[in-house]
């Protein structure tokens, strides 16, 4: 299933983004990020490929539009996500001797699990695992599953959090 730019914008629920959509690229975020040698976007995209089902395509552009769209609105979030991405990079080098984007998909998955992220409560101010759960895993899941394509993947064409109108709830499953 192909994620589109529209999905990302929908997941952003169109706040300011509609107007500034053209500029939602990683460089906008990396310009401000001081905390890491590796561009945050590369790390996040690589992790999203592990967090999203393999049936999802076009992860890179989707994540870029979504995360940059969010970050450009909220400086605190931008700092949090950049720092957390840098933190995961440090673990990757420690445990796998390579940066996240160079790891195989299974290794990225393993990296997140080794961190304890599956069972960690999401918390922006918590332990490493809790911050990863909040800023990376749940952030990416929220983006995917409130978007029309993410909803469709599960079987709901107007998922909670997406303003998809008042027609879908009336339709039967056969349509």
């Amino acid at each position: 299933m192909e994620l589109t730019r529209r999905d990302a914008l929908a997941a952003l629920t169109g706040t300011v983004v509609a107007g500034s959509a053209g500029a939602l690229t990683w460089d906008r975020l990396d310009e401000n990020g001081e905390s890491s040698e590796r561009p945050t976007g590369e790390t996040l995209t690589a992790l999203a490929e592990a967090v999203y089902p393999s049936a999802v395509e076009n992860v890179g552009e989707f994540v870029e539009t979504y995360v940059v769209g969010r970050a450009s609105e909220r400086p605190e979030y931008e700092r949090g996500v950049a720092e957390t991405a840098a933190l995961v990079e440090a673990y990757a080098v420690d445990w796998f001797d390579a940066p996240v984007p160079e790891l195989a998909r299974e290794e990225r998955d393993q990296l997140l699990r080794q961190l304890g992220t599956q069972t960690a409560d999401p918390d922006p101010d918590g332990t490493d695992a809790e911050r990863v759960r909040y800023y990376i895993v749940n952030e990416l899941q929220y983006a995917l599953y409130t978007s029309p394509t993410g909803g469709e993947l599960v079987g709901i064409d107007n998922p909670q959090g997406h303003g998809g109108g008042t027609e879908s709830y009336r339709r039967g499953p056969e349509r």
Partner: protein
Amino acid sequence: MSADETEESEQDRTPSDRVDVCVVGAGPAGGLVAHRLADRGHDVVVLEAGPRFDPADRLERMERAIRPIHGDDEVWEMSGPRDEFTTPGELFYPLNVARVKGVGGSTLHWQGMVMRLHESDFERRSRDGVADDWPIAYGDLRPYYAEAESALGVAGASDNPFAPPREEPHPLPAFEPSHSDSLFAEACERVGVTTHAVPNARNSEPYDDRSACVGYGTCKPVCPSGAKYTAESHVEKAEEAGARVLDRVPVQRLEHDSAGERVEAAVYATSDGEEHRQEARAFALACGGVENPRLLLLSESEQYPDGLANSSGLVGRHFMEHLFAGMGGTLERRTRQNHVGFITSESHQFYDDPGAGAEGTESSVPPSDDDLGPLKLEFLNYAGPSPVETALSAETWGDDLLPQLREGYGNHVAMGALVGQLPRAENRITLDPETTDDHGNPVPAIYWRIDDRTKRTLARANEIQRTILESLGVDIEWTVGPDNTGPAYHHMGTTRMGTDPESSVVDPQLRTHDLSNLWIPSSSAFVTSGAMNPTLTIAALALRVADDLDSRL
């Protein structure tokens, strides 16, 4: 984005010179009273304890509602010393998920189902021999119900054969039934139960400068589109008509004149710790069913040692709630839940006669001769888990998670019901001197338990629900009934209405018996609870109070 963190505006919070009316509380009751009176040229000041929440933050609040880190009370920042309470009674009462403090009041969080009480609700004593009759009848409120429906923008249909008489259609067309409503409608026909539309204070088309519903599905606790009515709308209209609205100014007490006959001033606090006196010719106390009695009790004086307007001793007593009964499970077909966050079908068939049986094309609902109270049945559109919420709390991700989400979503259905509680003096709001709020005031203490008649009625609701769900072929997985019920967050009864000053706090015009310039537009004046969500009745009473005040000022 916390409203407390956002810069507190430089608004001038010093009092106005003596005004015509001082409204305390900016929920629907306060908003409607303030708007109508300001619109008629009166000088109005509204004092609101909580903040004004910026509409630009609604999407972020929606995200708080969906993401698991945030508790229910966090979406609208209901916690901390300001909102302390205790529940020494038999049952725990979760007060801070049951209300919101801020401009808009609890309608920021509410679901927005709005129906009129039935004629029978005003005559419980005459009809059933329990509780009391109201001192007013349905007919007294009927024109105000119509005005309240226009004010709130109610989407509804005239297809409910059990509803009390009405002359005019609802201002907006009803939301069409959901796919699962159609499954329920067939099953209901088989057992003899009639279904009909739900009146919703939610725009089915653009109304009153607010957009139509776009289906975010998070109505309760937050609608990011503005389609769901909140009382912010009437507070703003009041301001446009000239009222002055002060937020973050909790009223500490009301002060009366030396004769104890009139309220002179509302004493409020500002965040710098200062206290100010707002004087007015008349006062409307609109702080909701818990804070209304609390403020009266906090305003004790030499003349009123047990609390202001409390010569009867009944302030805070007869606290009532609506109780929830529900049942749900799965079907072997797709039911398409969680697309929207509101309900489109219900049944009031068992409202006036909860023990009546029903005969359908294939089977029946057995009659009951138990002594029962009113109940109403709801067919939910948000049964079962929402995939996004499941994903966010799952202990896995990627290709492991997707099949779990697909498995968990798609086949659920559920029914709800509301049951009214009898007014009982021992269910009450008092002050807890052991615990104080951020201003050193004793917090509300809630004594609450559920009587046997209410429990029987919950069991009856379950019985009808089971009949319908079984006819639909549902594999029933959960039941909420008499022993694990919970409140619907409708606070009623704590400053009850009546003609006798010995047995009531306010008169039929909602003016206190003790103080001639103090009105209490609120569900706290309800004599009985009925089983209908209360806010349309609150709105009708508020408009009626505004008319009464207008004629006297």
